[in-house]
């Protein structure tokens, strides 16, 4: 596999959920960690089942309720981190961190009804707050090159472009100081890394 570059500097601290705020349209929004209840699960399914297919990216969310359920079953597991934005009992958005070999892949979806109201920014910050609290070190994501709004949001948060070879732009963020030996190579000359 090719190398993914992460920023040297650790990102600033992110607030942890629960987070409540009024969005750009005057709606009360609450961001909470996913609680694994059946009601939350079904509310997520309903959000993705009515998600505009033209906002899909690289095959997710998948089309059709049964595929949505299969996909959610794979990413709502204990080793993943999931954060949900609620508005009056409905899911407005969902963000997730899913582990791969060395790091966590991030994805975020805001339902069309709730887009362009500042929810995505709060949601991703809430997810990264959970990630920081859980001790996650490295996060990466992919985004379509033409999606300037998303790219500038990720840049504002601290993501840096890590790979430009593919169709999609790959970006990476360092959430916590590294504790493992391989990532501490940069510090080997002063020997101060613990």
């Amino acid at each position, binding site marked *: *596999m*090719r190398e993914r570059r992460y920023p040297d500097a650790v990102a600033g601290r992110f607030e942890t959920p629960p987070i409540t705020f009024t969005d750009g349209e005057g709606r009360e929004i609450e961001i909470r960690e996913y609680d694994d209840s059946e009601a939350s699960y079904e509310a997520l399914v309903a959000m993705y089942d009515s998600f505009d297919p033209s906002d899909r*990216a*690289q*095959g*997710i969310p*998948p089309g059709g309720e049964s595929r949505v359920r299969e*996909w959610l079953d*794979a*990413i709502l597991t204990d080793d993943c981190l999931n954060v949900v934005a609620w508005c009056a009992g409905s899911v407005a958005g969902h963000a*997730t961190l*899913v*582990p*791969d070999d060395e790091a966590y*892949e991030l*994805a975020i979806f805001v339902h069309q009804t709730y887009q362009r109201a500042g929810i995505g920014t709060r949601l991703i910050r809430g997810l990264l707050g959970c990630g920081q609290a859980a001790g996650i070190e490295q996060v990466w994501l*992919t985004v379509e090159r033409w999606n300037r709004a998303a790219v500038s949001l990720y840049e504002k948060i601290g993501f840096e472009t890590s790979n430009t*070879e*593919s*169709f*999609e732009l790959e970006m990476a963020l360092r959430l916590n100081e590294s504790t493992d030996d391989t990532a501490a190579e940069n510090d080997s000359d002063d020997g101060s890394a613990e």
Partner: protein
Amino acid sequence: MHVLCGIGGSDDSLRALEQTVDRAAVAGDDLTIGVVENPNAEIAVEEVIRRAEAAIAAAGIDATVRHVEGDPGSRLVDIAEQEGFDRIVLGGGHTSPMGKISIGPIAEFVLLNSNTSVTLVR
């Protein structure tokens, strides 16, 4: 149909190999497996060639396996055009644990530069 299936040892290319061989057995395609050197693959070229030959033998078809040296994408496009292939078949991309599909540089090059129709196997 005269089919060129390009594989380099990634998981998606091995799935493409399997499906292409199965289809050839039913449709009677004239199949060539081009084994390319994919620097991102974890399996060596010799092992990929061995697997291709095993898949062909298991399906009981008559197909050619050949080692394609040089830049994988451009060589596949060249071979398909110069030797009159009707279709290039490639793996359909890597799926991350998140479920996101991404297409590798070889498939990207072939898609953008080939005059021959291209199939990505999902």
